[in-house]
């Protein structure tokens, strides 16, 4: 359960988040969409403390995050994150990428960590690639490894920050398929994405952001069929024209 309560943040004079509030239930899949520069990525990064907040608070399964809270280690253990540019560790094999945090953060034994990693890599369809290095994989494969790496810590929540934006078009679906599978299994997910097909068919709800504000929160299907705000209508008209 994630409770975002009146969160604001500025970079100098530029206010990137303006009194954002949202509530995400366990098992819910929420897509954050909106024009670029609207604060989507910043908002999602506040949820695991990668971005600090200036005011307000965020509650993530019992962990309270506020401007004065600096020790976020416990929070990060329960929140997995997938980045736009994968950010796999290039000097480590696929297997080591998935085991390193298990061993160092969760203090699992190497054997247990590898077993877990192999299970997860099989789940994302990459069983045959465990000894390869990230640079030997395609973008789609790298992103699936990144998902396995995040899942290896048994997170309660998964954050996806534009997970398919850096991919060639033919690789988008293999990543979305993994995400869809995850959603079906009841994972709580927050995704910043431009994949409107995914948003419509997999997400429960859509948060529409513009100019640092959460302008509209709606049921996914409803949002696409009958957006309420003018800004959401304009945004959808632009991206769904083709």
């Amino acid at each position, binding site marked *: 359960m994630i409770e975002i309560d009146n969160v604001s943040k500025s970079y100098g004079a530029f206010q990137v988040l303006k009194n954002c509030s949202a509530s995400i239930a366990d098992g819910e899949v929420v897509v954050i969409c909106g024009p670029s520069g609207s604060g989507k990525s910043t908002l999602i990064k506040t949820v*695991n*403390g*990668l971005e600090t907040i200036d005011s307000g608070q965020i509650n993530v399964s019992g962990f309270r995050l506020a401007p004065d809270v600096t020790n976020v*280690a416990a929070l*990060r*253990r329960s*929140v*997995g*994150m997938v*980045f736009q*540019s994968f*950010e*796999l*560790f*290039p*000097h480590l094999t696929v297997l080591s990428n998935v085991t*390193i*945090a298990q061993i*160092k*953060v969760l203090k699992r034994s190497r054997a247990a960590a590898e077993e877990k990693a192999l299970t997860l890599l099989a789940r994302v369809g990459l069983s045959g690639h465990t000894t390869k*290095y*990230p*640079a*030997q994989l395609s973008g789609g494969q790298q992103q699936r490894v990144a998902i396995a*790496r*995040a899942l290896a*810590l048994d997170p309660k929540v998964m954050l996806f920050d534009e997970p398919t934006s850096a991919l060639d078009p033919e690789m988008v679906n293999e990543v979305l398929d993994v995400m869809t599978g995850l959603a079906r299994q009841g994972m709580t997910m927050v995704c910043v994405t431009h994949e409107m097909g995914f948003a419509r068919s997999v997400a429960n709800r859509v948060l529409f952001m513009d100019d640092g504000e959460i302008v509209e929160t709606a049921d996914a299907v409803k949002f696409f069929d009958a957006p309420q705000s003018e800004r959401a209508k304009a945004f959808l008209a632009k991206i769904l024209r083709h």
Partner: protein
Amino acid sequence: MTVDLAALANALPFLLKGLWFTLQITLVGVSGGIVFGSLLAIARLSQSRLLSTLATAYVNLMRSIPLILVIFWVFFLVPWAIGWMTASGRPVAVGASLTIFVTFVLFEAAYYAEIVRAGFRSISPGQYAACDALGLSKFHAYTYILFPQAIRNVLPILLTQTIVLFQDTSLVYVISATDLLGAATKIAQRDGRLVEMYLTVGVIYFVFCFAASQFVKQLQGRLAYGAR
């Protein structure tokens, strides 16, 4: 004048002893310099204003004075300092070898620090974010993720600096240490064989440095990620 190869053969054991000391200085300078230099680099990049100012000041100081002066300082001043600190009233001899090892570590660390710092800065900010997101502690992130990448990214430059270090070891002749050049100088003066000795050590320095720089060249091609 004639070149006397017999004189060279006689001198060889002593020259090899000198070469061994040169290699020792290089090895100590590289290992100690990279360890201390990496700590300096991390201190410079740290968010603590105090740490980063101190490290920056140290690096700038060392890089602004000649190595030969640092050798003199450590050789002549440190015995006085130790004597003063231990209240023994007179300088405590430190010994040429120890002086040299300490000097090279202190001095080279400043150069290695800047190289390692460049290595850290060449890592994308996303890698730092990924470490944070996975909950890795600063220590774990630096040890297992960031430091290996930083070193890898600057390995050719580190090796190039090491070649310079290897050549700079010859400066220890100013405190009469017997490194390769020191050994050659001593024999040259004793036997009046300047040409043979200085040509020979010239060849030895060249062989080592040229081989090392060829290795660096090869390494650069192989280090790119994915080129395995």
